[in-house]
């Protein structure tokens, strides 16, 4: 209640600072992310793995509905948490940037540049009264000649960071503790996949609906292209994680 009293009056528009120097609308957008199913990304010895706790809202849904992992380019993939429609729109922009870069420079977009472009775009929506901030965070898995495999996080504030391992969504705090224990530099993507599935099951809130494991990787085994993990591998990871 005291929290509401502090922010009242200064939280109605994204163009208003509070006396504490916060922009509450951006914070609220981050809260939208914190209410979504957990997503985890790690950079392993031989690539990147991303997993998502996708709630199965209804048994009548066709398998593969409400996908939260997207392809942005051959060598760039994204996992999202937060408002899914917002995420889809961000992916449109990300894909356009990657394609435009390839056409202009005849080179695939480097991960750091992709991250910068997406972050700048998201940030722009925190500057104007006439639009609202995006209510989703994006995990970017990238691979380029210079940096090799990289993992980035883009937040609704427009902040962007490079990570060895990161979690977003509901169970992010518990998940972060778990992945910090892992020795990522020695794990392969296959090994990490099972371990991350276990983490997801552990941080899953029983009060929530059942979830399906969505997983993708960008590694040596996938030919350094972003791909959803093969179905048999995904199923076994799901089973092993639940055990």
């Amino acid at each position: 209640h005291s929290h509401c009293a502090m922010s009242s009056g200064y939280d109605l528009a994204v163009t208003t600072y509070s006396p504490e120097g916060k922009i509450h609308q951006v914070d609220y957008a981050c809260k939208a992310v914190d209410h979504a199913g957990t997503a985890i990304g790690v950079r392993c010895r031989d690539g990147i793995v991303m997993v998502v706790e996708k709630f199965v809202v209804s048994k009548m849904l066709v398998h593969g509905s409400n996908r939260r992992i997207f392809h942005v380019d051959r060598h760039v993939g994204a996992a999202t948490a937060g408002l899914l429609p917002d995420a889809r729109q961000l992916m449109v922009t990300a894909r356009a940037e990657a394609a435009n870069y390839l056409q202009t420079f005849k080179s695939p977009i480097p991960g750091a540049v992709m991250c910068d472009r997406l972050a700048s775009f998201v940030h722009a929506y925190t500057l104007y009264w006439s639009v609202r901030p995006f209510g989703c965070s994006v995990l970017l898995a990238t691979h380029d000649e210079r940096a090799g495999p990289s993992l980035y996080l883009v937040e609704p504030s427009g902040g962007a960071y490079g990570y060895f391992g990161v979690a977003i969504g509901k169970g992010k705090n518990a998940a972060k503790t778990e992945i910090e224990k892992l020795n990522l530099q020695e794990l392969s993507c296959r090994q990490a996949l099972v371990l991350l599935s276990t983490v997801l099951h552990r941080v899953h809130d029983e009060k929530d609906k059942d979830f399906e494991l969505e997983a993708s990787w960008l590694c040596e085994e996938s030919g350094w292209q972003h791909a959803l993990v093969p179905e048999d591998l995904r199923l076994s990871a799901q089973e092993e994680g639940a055990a």
Partner: protein
Amino acid sequence: MEFTDPLMRPRRDREIGAALATASRGPSASIAAQKMAGMVDTPSQLSRDDLDDEWSKPHSMGTSIMAVEFDGGVVMGADSRTSTGTYVANRVSRKMAPVAKSIYCCRSGSAADTQAISDIVRLQLSMHEMELREEPRVKEAAALFQGFCYKYKDQVMAGIICAGWDKYDGGSVWSIDLGGSLVRQPFSIGGSGSSYIYGFCDANFRPSMSRQEAKDFVQQALSLAMSRDGLSGGVVRTTIIDENGIEEDMLPG
């Protein structure tokens, strides 16, 4: 429709514009032309007006340019003649322009067009470099040239050879022709003088030459081209680009 941007104006309009500008300069211009006419062997058929038009033609670079990959970098070479019609406007011109720290381009075709294009690409590359936080690749510079030359192919006349060194490909040579097509080649020749040295180059080029061998090859080829092509001449300038930097040289005609 009136285009103020010179790059956007159709070619024909620019030449007409140049001729009109001369005509409007008045009697002093034609007197100067008359004096110049006295100093050269003028065919009797040419009238004073014809000469005015001749010397007001847009600067064109009848040219001999080339670039060769060697193990560890590239050697680029060019002649130094810029002509307006039959008059050599500049006999020591620089036809190789830097666009990045280790990337140069050889320019042939219209001098104005290629200067404008290389200036624009230099700007685009410097912004690209800031986003990349490292030196741009030669391939990317060549792609920028190609994007421009293709998009504006109806408005410009530019044959460009883009070459340089980067840490991913080492030395590389990329050729952009009049239509705006891009191709990477172990060596590339261009300009009006290049017609005369295709045979020589094909017979004498070897892959993985040393730095000095490549330089000798360029200097010899361009000298031969300049000796046969009336629109090429002056000195042979060479630029050698490798990991450590740039080395410019000049071989007097």
